[in-house]
């Protein structure tokens, strides 16, 4: 059984294998966090609301390479204090919410306090979706978690690399900035002469001594930019494959939050592919990026246009390079949230499946990964779905007969038909008999009975 700890460890190992040494400190902190959270009673809060935002915020900063130790210490201290405070709040709120029905509430103070608000918002959204799903009637998830873990791992590894390379794309490196400042003759020191400087002291040539690019930092530039390039392409292809995988089992209904996953996955896949193509147009950024020792990014979209034409373009088109960078950053951010969501869901499902396989009884049901083959069972399943959509869903602990009685109380004239459908289903499901001769009756009842129940304006609210 693939445990969540292994997933985290595998991601970290993959990151160690491909990332430059500057990032190792951040990743070691991440590994420490992961180890702590997996031993913690409140690992869910820790992982989602402290660990991941911390990594998100801290790791890219480290990748700037030329950052000094003091700044690093300040950033780390700030983040550690915030995280500790947030963890305390999370633990307090978790304790108040012992049945975890209001798990998203735990994130509220964290959202207010943590500077990584955007990433948090995405994670909270994911948790909201999950909580919403848990309150619905029981959903047999089967072995789907294994597929999701694999998908998340495949997508996650290149994305981590991509996130690490993000500052290289969106921002100039510290080395480049200091070199540019040093070489720009228009920059003058407005404060000169300094009040405490002895008279006659010559003005220093520049206060912006260029940082020397070390072989390590040049290698880091090259690796992270190359990794970003690869991440975009591989991530796009994997997401596309994942979309196809999702669509194969898709019910083609749009009632549940997870039904939107294929659309989201397809969108991200296409967006990443388009971005990769934009970055790799012949003769532009893509070729230069892979050259070690070169400046990190060649100008993108720097097409020579007549000035009159250029003036008519919108600002995003005039600054195509920045726009592409920004879009890339957003795509990677959204994809990261998706990966976190997939990993989290897979983790939860694996825990449930493990409990089922350990005792075969925790949930009282056998995992069924495919729809029933029997026509009567399929008809009854369709009946349940339709009734749920109308706000008359079955409670997960309710037996078919008790459910039929409840519905019969609401519509007395349907009692006989409801009982007939239920009896047919019971004899097939629990009596394990073949009732092909009655399948037509079951299908007719399953189709017509829900039509007698008025559609609720808010089915989810009605079902809860």
């Amino acid at each position, binding site marked *: 059984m693939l445990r969540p700890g292994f997933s985290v460890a595998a991601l970290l190992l993959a990151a160690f294998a491909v990332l430059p040494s500057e990032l190792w400190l951040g990743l070691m902190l991440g590994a420490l966090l992961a180890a702590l959270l997996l031993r913690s009673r409140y690992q869910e809060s820790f992982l989602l609301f402290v660990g991941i935002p911390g990594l998100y915020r801290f790791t890219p900063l480290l990748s700037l390479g030329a950052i000094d130790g003091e700044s690093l210490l300040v950033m780390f201290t700030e983040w550690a204090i915030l995280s500790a405070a947030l963890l305390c709040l999370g633990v307090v709120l978790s304790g108040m919410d012992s049945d975890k029905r209001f798990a998203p509430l735990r994130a509220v103070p964290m959202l207010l306090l943590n500077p990584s608000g955007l990433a948090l918002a995405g994670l909270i959204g994911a948790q909201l979706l999950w909580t919403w799903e848990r309150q619905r009637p029981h959903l047999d998830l089967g072995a789907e978690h294994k597929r999701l873990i694999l998908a998340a791992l495949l997508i996650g590894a290149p994305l981590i690399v991509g996130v690490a390379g993000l500052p290289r794309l969106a921002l100039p490196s510290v080395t480049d900035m200091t070199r540019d400042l040093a070489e720009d003759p228009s920059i003058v020191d407005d404060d000169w002469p300094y009040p405490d400087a002895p008279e006659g002291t010559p003005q220093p040539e520049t206060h912006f001594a260029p940082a020397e690019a070390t072989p390590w930092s040049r290698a880091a530039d090259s690796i992270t930019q190359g990794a970003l390039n690869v991440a975009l392409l591989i991530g796009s292809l994997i997401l596309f494959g994942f979309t196809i995988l999702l669509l194969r089992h898709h019910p083609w209904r749009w009632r549940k939050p997870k039904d939107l996953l294929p659309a989201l996955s397809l969108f991200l896949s296409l967006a990443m592919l388009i971005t990769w193509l934009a970055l790799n147009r012949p003769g532009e950024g893509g070729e230069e990026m892979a050259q070690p020792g070169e400046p990190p990014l060649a100008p993108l979209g720097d097409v020579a246009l007549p000035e009159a034409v250029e003036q008519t373009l919108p600002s995003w088109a005039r600054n195509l390079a920045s726009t592409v960078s920004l879009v890339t950053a957003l795509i990677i951010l959204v994809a990261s949230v998706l990966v976190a969501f997939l990993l989290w869901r897979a983790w939860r499902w694996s825990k449930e499946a493990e409990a089922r396989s350990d005792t075969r*009884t925790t949930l*009282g049901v056998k995992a069924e990964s495919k729809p029933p083959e029997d026509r009567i069972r399929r008809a009854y399943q369709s009946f349940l779905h339709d009734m749920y959509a109308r706000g008359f869903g079955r409670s997960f602990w309710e*037996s078919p007969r008790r459910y039929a009685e409840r519905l019969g109380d609401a519509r007395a004239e349907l009692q006989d038909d409801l009982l007939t459908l239920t009896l047919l289903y*019971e004899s097939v499901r629990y009596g394990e008999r073949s009732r092909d001769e009655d399948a037509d009756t079951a299908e007719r009842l399953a189709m017509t009975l829900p039509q007698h129940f008025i559609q609720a304006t808010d089915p989810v609210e009605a079902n809860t």
Partner: protein
Amino acid sequence: MIARWYETLEQSVSNVISGKREEIELVVATLLAEGHVLLEDVPGTGKTTLARVLAASLELPFKRVQLTPDMLPSDLTGVSIYAGGEFVFRPGPIFTGLLLADEINRTTPKTQSALLEAMAERQVTVEGQTRPLDKPFLVIATQNPVEMEGTYRLPEAQLDRFMCRIRLGYPGPEAELEMLTRLREQHPLERVSAVTDRKALLDAQQRVTRVKVSDTLAEYLLALIHKTRDAEGVSLGASPRAALMLQRMAQALAALAGRDYLIPDDVQRALIPVVAHRLMLEYEARLEGLSAEAVLERVLQSVPVPVEA
């Protein structure tokens, strides 16, 4: 077939006991499942009458023992007496078809324990010699609530031998009025005649064992049992024996309903009568007024029923 058999029996019993249709069904199901019944309620609610009318309707050899604090185990199991130059075993009241152990919690734990072997293994060992009991052997014990004066709490091992604990409760106003009318001149118990016989009962018991239990329902049943073990406020959950008895009881209820397969409702319906008396609640939970029945209601509402998702 069992459904028709039960219909006749239920009619006969209902002529004497009014407004207790559900309780009667549970008691008959327990007998079909080869279990023993513990009827618990305050005095005067018809516990003894129910046992007697059942015995009469089933035409079983019937013995009634009024258990008292000074009763000895040998008063139940029997004793060897010296007669004609040798020791001759004189069987006690336990050698019967249906034993009514009235007010079982008024006798000492030692005498209560004398019933253990007979109930569990359907045999009695007296003076080193083991003697089997006839089939069927059914014990219907009645007890007053433990809080009442002069009662001894039944040991857990003894409680575990009872398949079901059933509380009769007071009859409803209409049933009580009907009872007053019916019993004004003659007690209907005196008119009860046998509606079935021992062979039919044994045959029905055999059929119950053949009621189909699907794998998913067996898992559901076990999920309920396991849930009782870590339920809040419970210090001792249901035993594996309880799981076996729950399955058999649910099979009997399915058979009485005319089905040869189990449905979730059978398990749900059998859960409280079969498991409630086996649960030990924590001291704090008892102080807070939590009952085993309430715990089991929660358990029922926390385990998903195996239905298409």
